[in-house]
């Protein structure tokens, strides 16, 4: 069974890195270029894990996470927040919005992969 990961990320480069990384580990990757589409895809596709970028225009990662976690289907999907903000309180904000874990950019792709696998209980 192939695990499906939903990427909600507005930067194309970052999507490609994650796509290549996760693809090389045998995971199937779905992509959403903004928060609104991300929420829709999360509820319609029901992925096994979501990688949520925080800094996005229109709807940021916190808001998207809150919306997904507010639904019965969405509340069970693990969401990992990916953020480049380093101001105090960001981690707390992510957890308050419902994120299961938190990673700051720039991340080591290997480390991120390990984190993803651990949340899929494959690590």
């Amino acid at each position, binding site marked *: 069974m192939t695990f499906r990961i939903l990427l909600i990320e507005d*930067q194309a*480069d*970052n999507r490609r*890195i994650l796509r*290549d*990384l996760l693809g*090389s580990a045998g995971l199937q990757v779905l992509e959403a270029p903004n928060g609104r589409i991300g929420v829709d895809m999360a509820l319609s596709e029901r992925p096994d894990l979501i990688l949520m970028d925080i*800094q996005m225009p229109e709807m940021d990662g916190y808001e998207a996470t809150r919306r997904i976690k507010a639904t019965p289907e969405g509340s069970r999907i693990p969401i990992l927040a990916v953020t*480049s*903000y*380093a*101001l*105090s*309180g960001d981690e707390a904000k992510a957890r308050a919005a419902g994120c299961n874990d938190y990673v*700051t*950019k*720039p*991340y*080591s*792709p*290997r480390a991120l992969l390990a984190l993803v696998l651990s949340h899929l209980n494959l690590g």
Partner: protein
Amino acid sequence: MEHRQRTISAESPRRRDAPRGEAAEKSTEKGASWFRISEWIARIRAPIRVKLLVSFVGISALMVALALLGLATLRLSNDRTNQLIEDQELIAVFTQVAIDVNVLLIYGMSIFANSREYSEIPIYQMTHSNSYPELILVHAVRKAKQADPVDVARLNQLENLLSNTRALFQFSLSIEKLWKAGEKEAAKSEFETRFVPKAKEIYRSAYTYSSARIEMMQADAAATDREYQASQVTVVSASALAVGLALLLGYSISASIIRPVSRIRQVLRDLGKGDFERAASVANRDELGELADSVNKMSLQLGKTYADLKVANEHKSQFLANMSHEFRTPMNSILGYTELIQDGIYGPVPEKIADALSRVEANGKALLGLINNVLDVSKIEAGHFELQLDPYDMAEVIRSVTSTVEPLVAEKSLSLEVDIDPSLPEGYGDSARIRQIVLNLVGNAVKFTERGGLSIHVSASDAAFTIDVSDTGPGIAPQDQETIFYEFQQADTSSTRSVGGTGLGLAISRKLAELHGGTIRVESTPGAGSKFTVMLPVRTPLKGVAT
């Protein structure tokens, strides 16, 4: 200094009166009327020294008025006393004259009543005793004429008595003459028909005058008594009035000065606490009014400046957040792709390319390190730096640092000695930042040392960790030992150019140590290496955001 959050609305700031002083809060009538008077005085457009001068002069004038009143009363009483004395003297004169004339009469009667042989001595005595009342009267008349104003009644009475007394004397002279001539019967007849009536007349007048005077004197005494009572009342009530006026004046003027001062003081105190919305409402139109105006303007200005600064600070925070994102996003791509390529995700990587890629990765990480340093410094300066406090194992922190630098140490063929006290207590602080501090110091030691090696000693005592990082590098000149901790400073650019770095590491390390309540010191001799000592409390005291 903590500033209270206050929003100043765009239309007009709500200015509130500073709380009033205690005196004005009394709602008794007395308090209210004094308050009004002091307000009225405050409104007078005159400098304070003039008001004070008027107040003191006014009070002095009241004192002078009281003194004058006292003097007038004394003068009155003095006049009365003099009057009484004169009355007494007159009564004495009249009484004396009456007595003397009575004596003469008795003399004469005794002489002429006895039918024995008269000696001349009694007659002589009678005649010459006449001179006594005359002398007294002459003296009294002179005095009466000298009085100013002349008491005409008194003068007339005295002159009347005097002329009668002189007439009596003439009679007694003629009686003596007759007696000496041997005409005893004629002398007796002269005595009975002329001397006795005249003497009785004098006696009666003197007696009458004396009684009248006594009556007058008693009336005067009673009047004096009444006047004394009256003047007592006058002086006491005048004193009370003067005291009341003085107090009123003094209080009103001082209140007109003190109340504005205390209001201004209250506003300044509020300003000191960060409350810019208080205004001193002061009725004065003198220097204190100007002072209150200035203070209010200053408070308004400070409030605006503070609001502006807050806005600027918010812009700064926003900038920091944006910059974080802007810098880290491309870095993420660079390092991310590099790592993926190195991992062979895009296909096998020939050795030469792998080498070149590792250079790319190293430089990318170096650049990231520099960006992080700059952002850290900005964060600390903007006051957005908060420590994340958790329990940590100091030995583990040190070990993670040494494992990070081991490759570089090996590459430079340096020795690394690590000595960690086995009985270290569990620490409570931000382990990531502590690691940053130690890594900075150890990394510097490795960077700057070409021969020899470095050593790390960790111990704990008295609720504080001590971490010594020593190296056998070139050492630091005494004049640089403080400035190396300043931002963007490196000791002697010639020796550091080959080493690189922004010079921020030590500045950040010291700030981080200070945030934990600790310190970083350096001991060094040029040519003999350096030793950096970090002291950190085992348990970080709770502090707010770095300022």
